[in-house]
Structure formats: C-alpha cells, structure tokens
C-alpha cells in the first residue's frame, strides 16, 4: 500500500440534504442527450423527429472529430430535436418505449480482441465518450496513447454521491471496465481512494491497478488534483480520466454486449424532502424524479454538484457525466445591510462571520445569491488557500484575461480544469466568474494547439 497524499489547502462545504443510502426506481417519461455536456463538440445529427431508436442507436457525431459518436440511452421515439439561438443543437429528446430494446454489440470475450477492435466496439456503441482527457477536459481521442488513466473513486464536493454505495455488488462489471481500460494504455491505471476506505468497497478488490490514497478536504477528490500529485501533465502529454459510473457502463458493454445506460443518481439539496438515490438512466428528465419531493419557493435545479453543476430547469435533463441532482433555494432577494450583519448562519471561509463559532460539522442551507457586487481583483493570497496545485492561480487567471497563450502554458494551464477552480470562485471576494474564465482559457489553448 502506497503512502497517503494529504491535501491541506481546501475547504469542505457542508450543506443540508445529503442523499440517504436508499434507492428508488423511477422511470422518466423523457430522456435527452445534450451536446452542451461535451466541450468543443459540433454535432451532426443522424436522426429525425419521429424516428424509432434502440438503446445504443447513434444520435449524432462530431463534424470535425468523427470518432465522437453519441448514442441513445433508451429505446423509443425521437420526440424533439431542440435547437436554440443560431440553431445551436440543445437537446435530442427521446420518449422511451415501455419495453426497452437494445442494439446487440455481441458478448465476445474481450481478452481475445485487439485494441482496435475494443475501441471500435466502444465507438460504435456510443460508450467511448465516457472517457475524457486532460488537458482541456474533452472526449478522449482513441488515436492518442495516454500516459496513464485516472479514476477517482470518491467525490469531496458538497453533497456528493457516495461511489462506494453506487458501485456496491458490481465488482465483476467494474473489474471488466478496468481491464478494458488497461488495454487502451501502456501506462498505469490509477485508482485513487480516500484514506480509510471501507474494505467492503469493491474498489479495494480490483486487480491490475495502482492504488493511491488521498486525504483532506475538497478538492482532494478532484481527479485534476490527484493527477497533479501523482503524475502531473507536461506539455504534449495526455492522460485520460473517468468516474466510477462510467467505468461500469464500459464494463457492461462487454459483459452484457449492449449500451446499458443505467445509473444511480443522488438526489440532494436542502430543498428536497427526502434526499436519496434513484435508479434511472443517463439523460433522464428530472420532473418525475423530483415529483412530490420538493419544498415550496423559488428553486435552483442543478445537474451535478453546487460548485460545478449545470443550471437546468424544473423539467430539465440530467447531464451525461452527472451522478447527482441538487436543488437549492434561489437567492434573488435583497438583504438590508447584509454585508455588515454578524452572520451566524452565513457559512464563510473567512472568519469575519460568526458562523465560525459553530461546530465544523454543522450543515448549512445556502442559496444562489452572489452575496456582493462584482469588484476589482484586490485581495491576494486568498485563492492559494483552497487551490492545492503547485500553480499560481491568480497569475494564471490574469494570463487568461489578457489571452497570453505563452504565459498560460508556462503557468500550467494543461494541468487544470474548470472544476479545479470551483472553490477559488466560491471564496473570491471580487465575485469574478472564474470557472467561465478558465474554460475560455482552455478553449483558447486548444484552438491554438490544434
């Protein structure tokens, strides 16, 4: 067992509404695949409204990178191809059949298959996009030889799902997924665990992987932090990463011979009566999932966690990579002299609010208010306190602001992703939209390098 890597600079945000370990089965009446979940994808649609599809039938591919193909998570009828401003494809919505039918990709033993055959099977079934790469956090290119593949088996973000619970009893499928991945790289498969992980967890029983142990506050569970500590990305290098549910989907393609998009989703947040897990599929509509389980008031629906998730509406769809829905109260209210009040209920990283008197375990109900107006970047040394990379965050952000490609590269942009800056954005006193800025920098860099 290797030694533990302890993350010191970070922050755990304890919110109300953590999911109980119970599973409800919900069949949504609509599912959707959203091209917006994948960075830099230019979709070319393969279906029309009214078409019949099976689970695993292709819906669209990328105009410029034709290896990127997305498949339907359910069998049913294409109900709507929804476009937004400038005809940007927003959602391909599918109405599911009562009896699910799957495209058969065959159950041939992968041990006898070549790397090319394995890749082809994953591409054609729409499972390939489960693998993402760093830098840029885009869908992996099968032609690349990644120097390693990283799987973070725990999530430290607020209200995060428990992957031990999600993967329980699925050891065989998970091992198959891991074995497939090990055929795709000559490097190591890193399975990153939380220190003190229960021995009942299936992760501890995996073979063919390197175990790495982490401890400390969020963002210890972020794969970006883990890569940085274990095997940092240099210019020109590529690593791939996946989350546990994605490994399961890949495993099932080979054990079941079909694109089985089943997923456990943690329904969380202070505005949910009974936070728990639901068993559904990728891209499920949240309306049925949250039915009769919501509190009154104006609500924010998030696919993902409160720090990095996407804002969706009350009848929106869960994102392709997300294992979590969060419902928070909206913060569109004025608060008189709010900046001057003692703030016993105001969770803050700084100790200027008296909430620091409470126990660290106290759970807060936080809303979506900005808690202040946008100002110039004045404070220094603040970002570093929650940014556990050997990178100067403020200097990197300023390089992005002025679009200085060379400085961005020198300052380490290949090693970071938006989510790594989520806490920086959370505590930022100037209320700058930092994750958006990081994405802009990554997109610029990617354009420059291609």
């Amino acid at each position: 067992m290797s030694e533990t890597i302890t993350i010191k600079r970070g922050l755990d945000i304890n919110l109300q509404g953590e999911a109980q370990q119970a599973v409800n089965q919900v069949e949504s009446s609509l599912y959707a695949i959203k091209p917006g979940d994948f960075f830099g994808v230019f979709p070319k649609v393969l279906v029309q409204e009214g078409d019949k599809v099976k689970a695993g039938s292709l819906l669209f591919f990328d105009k410029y990178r034709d290896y990127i193909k997305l498949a339907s998570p359910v069998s049913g009828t294409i109900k709507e191809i929804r476009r937004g401003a400038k005809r940007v494809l927003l959602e391909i919505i599918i109405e599911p059949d009562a009896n699910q039918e799957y495209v058969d990709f065959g159950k041939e033993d992968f041990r006898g298959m070549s790397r090319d055959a394995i890749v082809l099977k994953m591409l054609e079934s729409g499972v390939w996009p489960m693998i993402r790469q760093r830098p840029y956090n885009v869908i992996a290119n099968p032609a690349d030889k990644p120097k390693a593949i990283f799987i973070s088996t725990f999530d430290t973000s607020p209200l995060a799902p428990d992957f031990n619970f999600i993967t329980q009893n699925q050891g065989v499928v998970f091992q198959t997924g891991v074995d497939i991945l090990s055929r795709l790289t000559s490097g190591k498969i890193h399975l990153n665990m939380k220190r003190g992980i229960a021995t009942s967890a299936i992760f501890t029983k995996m073979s063919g992987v390197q175990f790495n142990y982490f401890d400390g506050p969020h963002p210890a569970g972020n794969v970006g932090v883990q890569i940085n500590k274990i095997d940092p990305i240099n210019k020109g290098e590529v690593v791939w990463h996946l989350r546990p549910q994605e490994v399961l989907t890949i495993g099932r393609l080979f054990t079941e011979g079909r694109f089985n998009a089943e997923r456990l989703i943690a329904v969380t947040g202070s505005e949910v009566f009974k936070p728990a897990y639901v068993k559904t599929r990728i891209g499920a509509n949240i309306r049925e999932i949250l039915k009769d389980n919501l509190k009154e008031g104006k609500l924010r629906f998030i696919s993902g966690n409160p720090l990095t998730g996407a804002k969706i509406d009350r009848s929106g769809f869960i994102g392709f990579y997300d294992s979590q829905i969060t419902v928070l109260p909206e913060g569109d209210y004025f608060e008189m002299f709010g900046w001057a009040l003692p703030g016993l209920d105001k969770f803050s990283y700084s100790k200027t609010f008296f909430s620091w008197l409470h126990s660290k375990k106290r759970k807060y109900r936080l809303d979506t208010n900005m808690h202040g107006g946008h100002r110039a970047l004045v404070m220094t040394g603040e970002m570093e306190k929650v940014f556990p990379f050997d990178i100067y965050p403020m200097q990197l952000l300023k390089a992005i602001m002025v679009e200085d490609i060379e400085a961005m590269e020198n300052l380490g942009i290949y090693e970071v992703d938006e989510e790594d800056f989520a806490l920086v954005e959370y505590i930022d006193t100037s209320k700058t939209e930092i994750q958006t800025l990081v994405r802009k920098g990554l997109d610029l860099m990617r354009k420059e390098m291609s």
Partner: protein
Amino acid sequence: MNAIRKFVDKIKPDFQKGGRFQYLHSTFDAFETFLFVPDKTTTNGSHIRDYMDMKRTMSMVVLALVPTLLFGIWNVGYQHYLSHGVESTLWQNVIFGAWKVLPILVVSYAVGLGIEFAFAQMRGHEVNEGFLVSGFLIPLIVPPDTPLWMVALATAFAVVIGKEVFGGTGMNIVNPALTARAFLFFAYPQDLSGDKVWIAEKADAYSGATPLGQLLTNEPITSLPSASDMFFGFIPGSIGETSTFLILLGGLFLILTGIGSWRIMLSVFAGGFGLALLFNVLGPLVAPENSYMAIPAYYHLIMGGFAFGAVYMATDPVSAAQTNTGKWIYGLLIGVMAVLIRVLNPAYPEGMMLAILLMNVFAPLIDHYVVEANIKKRLKRFQKAQIATT
C-alpha cells in the same frame, strides 16, 4: 426595511440607462449596495458563493483601525495639555483631540470619495470600497497639526496620481494612503517636520520631539520616553501611529479573520528587528558615537510608524507582493530598509514610509522572480519527461 426597499425600487429606473439621472448611475449603485446586498444570483460556475465580499473585507479593516483612531484622538488631547503643563481629564483630552482629528477624517473622506465617485461615474464602473480604508488611514498617518487644505490636496493627489491614473482600484503601483503622506512630506517639509508639528497647538517652551527626532540629533538614550510609554503610545507622533499595542491588536484581528497577511506583518518585524540587532553588535566597532545604533533593537519596532506601517501599510494587497514567497521577501526588505534609513541616513528621522514605497515599486519584480521559479520548475519537469520518452 420594506418601505426603504420600495422607495429604492421606485427611484431606481431614474438612475438606469435612459433614466433622468443616468449619469449618476455609479453613485446610486454605491448607495443601493450599501443599504442592500444585491439580489443578483449566480448564473454559471459555482452556484453558491461565499458571503464574504469587498464591503465586508474593507469594513473589517476599518473596524480594526477604530481603536487606534480613538486612542489617537485621546492622545492628541493628552499631549496638547501635557505640553502646556495643564492637568486635564479624559474628556478634555478626547474633546480637544476630536476637535483636531475629526475634521481631518471628514476632509480625507469627502475629497477622496468625491474623486472616487467621479471617476467611477466617468468610467461607468461600480464604486470600489478600497477608499473606505485609504480614507481612514490618511488621518492616522499625518501629524495632528496638519492644515486641512494640505490634507485635501494630499488626498486628491493620492487618489488621482496614486490610483486613478493607473486605472483605479486594483491597478495602482504604490499604496494610496502612503502616497498622500509622501506628498505632504516632500511638498511641505518646513511645515510638517521638525519638532513642532507632533503635538497639536504645542506650548512653545516644550520640546515636543518624537523619539525618532531625539535620536536623529544624537540625544542620549536615557532621554527617550520609557519603552512602555512608547509601546502603549503616550508619546507625540502622527495621530494613529503611537500606540503599538493597539496596532498589534488590530493586526491580530486582521490575521484571525484572514484578511491581513501574517506573512508580511511578521517578516517586516523580523527584518527590522534583525538589522537593528546587527547594528547593536556592529555599532561599538564601527561608529561608537552613533547612539542610534546602540538603542535596544526592539525600540525600533515601537517607535515612530514602524508597527503601523507593518500592519496596515505594507499589507495593502494591491501594492504588496502577491505571491506567498514574495510576501516574505517583500516584508523582510521593508523592515531592513526602514531601520537602515533611520540609522544611517542623516536627513530623515523616519524610514518606514520610504521603505514601504520603495518595496511597493519592487514588489512586481519580486513576484516576477518567484513565478519565474515556478515556471522553470515546470519546464524542467517537461524536459525530463522528454528525455525519458526518447
């Protein structure tokens, strides 16, 4: 509360685009956000945000400064009556002090905020809260007898030349409050130095020299006030700089709330103390006649503006070094420079202001080398990986 909100909502359209008072938009925004934290919600990125904002940050610094101001007011009165040899009560001291100090505070805020609002308006920006602190600092670092017109001129100079010409809050090179002080120091040397300005309306026969002034003229150490008087601040000097005790208390508050940089504070003290110790050792060998070299090293930390500079001036996040390593270097050099100027420069009794301004200018350079080291490290890792693959 509801009534106020309704009123604000009612007049708001007049100040927005196309409204009657559109040109006063920034001013309206400043007052509205003072009354109410805005209803603006997050759109993308992090959906939840820390309750900490710029207003809270800046008002915490002002809060930390309040004891220093109150003591300063009292001390102005105390020193005045002392010089006249008159017994005075606490209230007499406070009333006289307030009579002297509050006008300076009002002028500093009125002039500074006036210019800030005008520039924000011109640029169509929000009004930044930074001046709430600068405007509070300026009265604390000037002698109590400074004429108000000088305060006004210095404040205007500091805001326009020290800050706005560089692009406003967050862009300035040197500390605005210190810019105001430096302006006074160099523009009116006859009026604002020597022994007569440190006690308000001093009696002519009374000396009124600050400890630093005494040392500059090579008075013996025994003539200095006691260390405890200097630590607690019962000495003449600029309004807010005398009580090292209250300054440290404020500094502790800023460190605990996470607003002030403990790295800078600690390293300034360490730098100053270290060099003073060195002078103690070298003094008898190289310049036995220089009594300044022989004073106990910790005297430097409790005399003059050293503590105030270390806690409130050097730590200004905009003009200080921005990297953590850089902050150590920056702070140490400020401490060293301040003592160096005090002891070895025959012209100026105090070196803190010049030391901080000098290091403000060098802070970007320090940061540059710190960041450069990080870049080199990354480059080395890259080259090593290249060699490994080939």
